[in-house]
């Protein structure tokens, strides 16, 4: 064990999760360094969403541990709300608060969770909306936004909390190609600025150009891990990732 544990911003140790008699996660472990972008791919139903949700305890794993810096996130009781501020999450269906305007969506947790003053929260929210190119839509309600715009607001909402890491669960899967591009652009920018990100996505272009590592999951375990250079290069190995990418490539080529 030569690696220093404190090199890692996030450590996931042997996560198990069973629903009924379906073992969805069968012992998943990995480590994340500050500034990493880890892309998770894999067939439907292999537990990718469940894994992300276990990290911020939206789903409580049966066993295994999650560490943020050197604090344990699992089994943290009421303190979990503090960790969740540090672990942002972006969902496939945005989950913007439907009764609040874009800017209020970003403000609300700053005020109610972080205890910021309304003025400071507004300023911060405007700043984050600008970061994702949505300041002109600050007073729009979610129903008045396109999917891509809504997703960018939800990214601003996560960013406003100044998280150490953001979990993205198929952030573009509900979007058509044009809107997908504008969201991926924002994520690419975040990655370049050094945000630590865990991204479940089937956007191979994004994985190839942005990922620090590509993780292939199947049947509740990590099957292969490699850098984009290894996975997309002409070296050996990575048959499963490559065959999976071939399949989804076929799909998108239709």
């Amino acid at each position, binding site marked *: 064990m030569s690696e220093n544990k404190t090199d890692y911003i996030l450590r996931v140790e042997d996560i198990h999760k069973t629903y009924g008699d379906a073992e969805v996660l069968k012992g998943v472990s990995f480590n994340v360094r500050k500034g990493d972008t880890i892309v998770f791919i894999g067939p439907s139903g292999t537990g990718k969403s469940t894994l992300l949700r276990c990290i*911020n305890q*939206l789903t409580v794993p049966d066993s295994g541990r999650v560490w943020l810096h050197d604090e344990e996130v699992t089994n943290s009781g009421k303190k979990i*709300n*503090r*960790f*969740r*501020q540090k*672990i*942002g*999450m972006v*969902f496939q*269906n945005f*989950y*913007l*608060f*439907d*009764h609040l305007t874009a800017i209020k969506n970003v403000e*609300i*947790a700053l005020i*109610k*969770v972080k205890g910021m003053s309304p003025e400071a929260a507004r300023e911060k929210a405007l700043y984050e909306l600008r970061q994702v190119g949505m300041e002109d839509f600050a007073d729009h*309600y*979610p*129903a*008045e936004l396109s999917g891509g715009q809504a997703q960018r607001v*939800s990214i601003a*909402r*996560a960013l406003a*909390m100044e998280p150490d890491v953001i979990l993205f669960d198929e952030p573009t899967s509900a979007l058509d190609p044009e809107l997908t591009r504008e969201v991926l652009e924002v994520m690419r920018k975040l990655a370049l600025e050094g945000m630590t990100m865990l991204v479940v996505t089937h956007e191979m272009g994004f994985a190839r150009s942005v990922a620090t590592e590509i993780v292939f999951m199947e049947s509740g375990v990590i099957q292969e891990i490699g850098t984009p250079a290894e996975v997309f290069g002409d070296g050996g190995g990575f048959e499963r990732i490559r065959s999976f990418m071939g399949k989804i490539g076929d799909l998108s080529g239709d």
Partner: protein
Amino acid sequence: MDLFSVVAEWFPYLVEGILVTVGLVASALIIGACLGLPMAIGQVYGSRPLKYVIGLYVWFFRGLPVLVLLFMFYFTIFPLLNLDLDAFFVGATVLGLRGAAYQSQIFRGAIQSISEGQMTAARSLGMSRAAAIRTIIIPQAVRIALPGWSNEYPNILTDSAICYAIGVAELLTRTSQIVTQTYITMPIYILCALMFIMLNFAGMRVIAYLEKRVAIPGFSGGGQAGIV
């Protein structure tokens, strides 16, 4: 005595009855909302025993005729508790407690129609469950519930006349007093009916206005659906 002078003479007395009726209805609606909303939250998010108790309450108040409830509280329950309460207070309380049972089910349906994602997103930002319920779920639920809620007003308005039975000096009570005194029947009852209809109409307009005020794009609850 001609009809017009009779009406002119008793009109102020009837108008006072309107005020009593409005007071009954407003109190009942407020009591119903103040109890109904927390009950709905309890039924959706509460522990099993709590859900059970609320379910029992709803079953009880929806299962009995309003007149039975009224007599029960006026002649038994409150006297047993050694409370010598004014008939108006008993009427408003009974209508309110009964309204709470109905309102709780309106609010419960509204809460349950909110997508799970709203709570998930709130929790993912570090909000406690209680804070999420307060700041995300309730504001949405209230808006979704408004069209259904607005039916509570005509229901309680028409039900309020039953307080006649315990002698609350509301519209119907006063109407029948006038009839007894003047032996004029039909025109006085028609006047009473007109006043109820006017109250119904005015109240619905106020509610429609409120719905418009709180309407938010994307909520079926706002603006159109509830206007009669």
